[in-house]
């Protein structure tokens, strides 16, 4: 068989290392989503309160992430914190910090949207049925709000996984970095390595994100009506 170059993926522990790198990416996303969700639910609730100042501050907080690219925030924390605040901070911690804060802003917006979209007459008719406030939350509001939140939250998770690819630029050893190492080592033996390695990473990301976006679309359709 002619040497295609694809063998580079299977040489030694290359495959294992690449998948391990992918796991780092997923780990960072996962931790950030968990922290972001906890903070975000809290923020979303705060945003439905009747305080103009609070609303303004939290909206501003969201816009900070919507207007300035995430990579800029990664740079600000990674390059800025050590000299300015005298805190030594690794790429991993930087990533989790930035992604959690970003996630909190977005989840907060999703929670706010879900709560605000709840039709008022539902609360009124539940009251007419004699349900207590606690029961209204338990049986009427929270189940519906969760449904409304689910597609957006899954979508956010997909976006976050894709965006974690940026952490290679602040020195985190993840799948792209390991790809680069494999390419550098094999540069003489496997000159086409970068084609196969980056192609493979491309497919890996697709395999992780595609099921998630399908899931989100399905819930969106299911609960549209």
């Amino acid at each position, binding site marked *: 068989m002619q040497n295609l170059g694809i063998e580079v993926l299977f040489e030694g522990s290359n495959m294992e290392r690449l998948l391990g790198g992918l796991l780092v990416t997923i780990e960072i996303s996962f931790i950030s989503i968990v922290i972001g969700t906890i903070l975000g639910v809290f923020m979303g609730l705060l945003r439905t309160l009747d305080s103009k100042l609070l609303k303004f501050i939290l909206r501003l907080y969201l*816009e900070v992430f919507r207007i300035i690219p995430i990579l800029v925030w990664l740079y600000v924390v990674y390059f*800025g914190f050590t000299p300015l605040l005298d805190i030594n901070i690794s790429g991993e911690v930087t990533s989790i910090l930035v992604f959690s804060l970003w996630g909190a802003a977005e989840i907060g917006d999703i929670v706010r949207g879900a709560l605000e979209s709840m039709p008022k007459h539902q609360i009124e008719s539940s009251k007419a049925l004699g349900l207590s406030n606690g029961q209204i939350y338990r049986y009427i509001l929270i189940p519906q709000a969760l449904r409304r939140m689910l597609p957006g939250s899954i979508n956010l998770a997909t976006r976050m996984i*894709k965006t974690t690819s940026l952490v290679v630029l602040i020195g985190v050893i993840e799948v792209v970095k390991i790809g680069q190492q494999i390419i550098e080592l094999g540069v003489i033996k496997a000159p086409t390595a970068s084609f196969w390695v*980056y192609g493979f990473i491309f497919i890996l*990301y*697709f395999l992780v994100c595609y099921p998630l976006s399908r899931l989100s679309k399905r819930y969106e359709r299911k609960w549209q009506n």
Partner: protein
Amino acid sequence: MLMNLDWEFIVESLPLYGDAMWLTVKLAFWGILFSLIIGLLFSVILYYKVSVVSGVIVAYIELSRNTPLLVQLFFLYYGLPKIGLHMSEMTCAIVGLTFLGGSYMTEAFRSGIEAVSKSQIESGLSIGLSKVQLARHVILPQALAISIPSLGANAIFLLKETSIVGAIALMDLMNVAKDLIGMHYKTAESLTLLVLAYLVLILPLSLVLTWVERKVRYAEFGD
């Protein structure tokens, strides 16, 4: 803290940031323009369900939306030359942005087209409009108006995504800031300018979009 900034350094660095901003604007302009063209074309093809082509487009949309731009760029810039396809950094960045943005724009146009009601289409058919006339006079004008907010949001998204092109050796805002930090240790100044540069680029657009969204939501044709 404002007092502690080295203003002389900031003024000296401004031209560097200016050049990089110009690069960002150029990249975003071409990327958004080509994405819009692809989006319009593909959404119409999807609407008319052109059999095989539609299948290919659906596959492209999924690939493009479910992979990060950084990996797309690395594949284009480092991967493709190995099988004989060479592109300059600039071309590569524009192709990458278009590959990413095309699918987002297609979806935006498509949901606009789908929002045009069936009865509008039948009403157009009943006065004898052909398929092409129907698209031109009835479907597209309405679909475009509906799509504008999401097209705008996609444009801003693409503008932000240009921050990644530094990874394929283009001297963009990210690399300018990184270099200044590395060479002069002027971290606060470099990072402040970096944030400000993106703020200047994106904030006006974002405000215009909010305004347009409100306008589209509360008003219809005839105001």
